[in-house]
């Protein structure tokens, strides 16, 4: 078996150099923290990564604000919506589904597992409540995130993930719309993923909304 062959070769190399056990894993430097400025740092980094954002008081306001945003972009009210957001008071005109996103999907509305102040990243925890395709297939991605779910740093997200008892199949950290610099090193947004990412920062407590 190749597995045994490869591991055998590795063991031989390690013993030839006599390094086994000679190097200890180092203490990691403390991750950056922002105290009271955590949410401000988060929104500042969102903007730095070409996201737009607005604050809402509670999730109930989400449909109305999403509709306004779509209207401002001249977009039709058709969208993929994360299951936890399906039951919000959407106007009747909205065509919505929560299956995987398709090839012509224009808009998706998602709920983030958390946010990272350090990098302005959204953490998306895949599963029945949060289809991964919603994050990548549409041209426009609207993401709700509770202010209280914003961690100082990645390590804060890892901690929250560990608390759920398992890694999701996919944990997607997203910092802004898709981009590329591959043609003449000119940054262009909307390479393969969303062209625009709009964040709705929910001030209310997650549990009470």
């Amino acid at each position: 078996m190749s597995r045994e062959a490869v591991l055998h070769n590795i063991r031989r190399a390690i013993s030839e150099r006599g390094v086994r056990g000679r190097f200890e894993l180092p203490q990691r430097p403390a991750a950056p923290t922002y105290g009271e400025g955590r949410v401000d740092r988060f929104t500042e980094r969102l903007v730095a990564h070409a996201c737009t954002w607005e604050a809402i008081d509670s999730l109930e306001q989400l449909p109305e604000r999403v509709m306004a945003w779509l209207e401002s972009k001249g977009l039709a009210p058709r969208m993929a919506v994360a299951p936890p957001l399906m039951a919000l008071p959407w106007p009747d005109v909205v065509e919505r589904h929560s299956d995987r996103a398709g090839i012509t999907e224009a808009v998706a509305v998602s709920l983030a597992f958390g946010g990272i102040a350090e990098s302005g990243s959204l953490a998306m925890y895949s599963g029945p409540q949060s289809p991964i395709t919603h994050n990548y297939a549409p041209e426009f991605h609207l993401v709700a995130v509770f202010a209280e779910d914003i961690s100082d740093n990645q390590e804060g997200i890892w901690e929250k993930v560990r608390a759920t008892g398992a890694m999701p199949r996919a944990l997607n950290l997203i910092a802004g719309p898709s981009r590329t610099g591959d043609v003449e090193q000119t940054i262009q947004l909307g390479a393969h993923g969303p062209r625009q990412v709009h964040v709705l920062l929910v001030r209310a407590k997650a549990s009470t909304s």
Partner: protein
Amino acid sequence: MKALPGTFDSRAAVALADPSLQKALKNFKPLFVAKRASAVAELEGFEQLRETAAAIKDAVLSELDTWLERYAAKVESLGGHVHFASDAAEAREIIREICRKANAKTICKGKSMVSEEIGLNEVLEDDGYKVVETDLGEYIIQLAKEPPSHIIAPAIHKTREQVADLFEQNHPGRPREETVAGLVNEARHALRERFFQSDVGITGGNFLIAETGTSVIVTNEGNGDLTQTLSRVHVVTSGIERVIPTLDDLSVFLRLLARSATGQDTECYTTLSSGPKRPGDPDGPEEYHVVLVDNGRSKMLAGRFSQMLRCIRCGACMNHCPVYGAVGGHAYGWVYPGPMGSILTPLFNGLAENYDLPNACTLNGRCQSVCPVKIPLTDLIRTMRNEQVKAGLMPASQRRMMSAWGWVARQPGLYRAFEKLGSKMLRLRAGRSGSIASLPGAGAWTRVRDLPAPSGPTFIDQWKSRGGQS
């Protein structure tokens, strides 16, 4: 991938005479060097992160077997498959077999240097699969049938006009686009269908996490995510050295990677994948495979170049290398260019076949000073020269000169005499002009520059005649 034809010299000469490449290389400074410098300056404790990252790598490599076993067991517990490949041929076979079993027609690929290293595309295309590179840069060079010229910006040598030509030839029925935005949009549309048709998605793995059985990819375009999410089967190709212990270790590397690679504080998309689609999941691949490629790495682990296994493929070394900056990536002849390639390519493909690579370096040390995992690249390049000498590969003429010089330099009287003679002859040749425009036997110097002439008798002679006074 097969090595490119020609010698380093001939490929370098082509590169130096290629105006569009030279134009692209000029962009490196504002694009990579300056942006990295400011991204690094903005993060407190960057140096400490480099130290920590290097130490994590060294610790893992010193017990690599254990970490790989832990990682593999975790992946398998999540329903994923882990394959070990001793060499490139085995890795290709494993992936061909996965594609066969999946009845694949279309294979989408995220950027993966290991897949370039093992020459995967050629064999999959020969098998009749539609293989689509989805990173825009990789897509462009796939259309151009060229190898990457940079590990993170593979099509950096292509101008907008050249990309427009390629798209015009390959996207029939579409009007020619001239702007960057138009070209990016055209590629978006062309690739979108492929993503949704894809049967097998092959990506690299920037990091493998033992704690959680997770593979991590980092991209800006989102192509890797569409590739691995929409395909029925996801195959991760990765070198065996990419395993790290925990999620918290990942954070150390992520803080270094984007800053070192592109001067961003983070790339757009960092994706952690753990196993296949689970019950109730609306999307994601039904099968999840990891192919761990040795291909000479375990041998590297034993020898003088083990520190190369710290490499996280960020490209900072080449971005800061003045030789790479002069000739670009294709001159190096294979998958890995620049300083890291000057060490890796001889190790993978032979010291003799790649004699020039470690020699075409001024040992200026800039690569080493920016390496996020503190690989002593300059020292290793010199060590590689030593390996070449030990293998008897130094050209005979140079070897003879070196040993003659070495012998004379150990006879101070004789050395002095040669210096005296040389000084006198050069002064005669220069006359009062102060420099020499051409000199038999020194053509390689005087072809490019004048040779400043000695300004008088040797220092040691003058020092003696002045009785040791300045």
